[in-house]
């Protein structure tokens, strides 16, 4: 319940203020140190755009974060509601297992390299 409230407040903040021109939002330490973008850079701006229903603008800010939202939400849903469902557990072992972890790692590192090259 408290978590939900915190999420709502956060969503409100990210809706009203645009991290792209606000000072109040945390900057990425990796970006400050190296001048390169990390895989998470742009996530806050992307959330702002998503809350304003601009999925395309959000994808420009951080493509990986936007496309991973359905996957992450499904994973949480399985963990919270699907512990007794055989079907949910089958999906879990297939798409949220060790291969998925390695694939996610590879995807994030690939994204990291590519976004700094382009």
């Amino acid at each position: 319940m408290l978590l939900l409230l915190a999420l709502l407040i956060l969503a409100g903040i990210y809706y009203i203020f645009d991290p792209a021109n606000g000072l109040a939002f945390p900057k990425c330490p990796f970006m400050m140190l190296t001048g390169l973008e990390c895989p998470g850079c742009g996530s806050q701006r992307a959330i702002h755009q998503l809350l304003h229903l601009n999925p395309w603008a959000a994808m420009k800010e951080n493509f990986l974060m936007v496309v991973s939202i359905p996957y992450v939400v499904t994973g949480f849903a399985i963990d919270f509601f699907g512990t007794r469902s055989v079907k949910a557990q089958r999906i879990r072992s297939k798409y949220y297992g060790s291969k998925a972890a390695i694939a996610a790692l590879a995807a994030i590192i690939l994204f990291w390299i590519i976004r700094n090259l382009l």
Partner: protein
Amino acid sequence: MKQYFYLEGSIKQGPFTLEELKKKNLKRSTLVWCHPMPDWKPAGELPELDELFSMIPPDVKPGAESKGRQQPAGPTPVMPKTWLVESILVMLFCCLPFGIAGLVFASRVDSKFYQGDYAGAEQASREAGRWTKIGFWLAIIFYIIVLFLTLIGVTAGIFASVF
């Protein structure tokens, strides 16, 4: 008339007569005592309570059919939490190195579990959880510090423009 006592957790209940005791919804495993007995005994072992349990099959002893396994929960051990999704979130919102560590351990939880190494899977799950939590709290602290600094900056700015 024999006086019976039984244990509800560690709290002694009683005395009861045998007739009263039989209405107490005892389980086979409930510990019962009456005068000549040297020690508490499970109700299922008392002959005078036998009829109580004639319709109830004995409790399944945890681990009885899965000897040697780490998980006492039942015949199939439960997969420990992999922290996969949480690690991804940590990586995308804050602390890349911790997210990477979390993901590496997340993949080990699963592979060890399917190799039958349940203890190893538990261990990897704890490690993954630890890295993910470190990342999560670092993110929170980092965000709070930035927010705090900005508030100071804003108030300073307001004061500077007023005076």
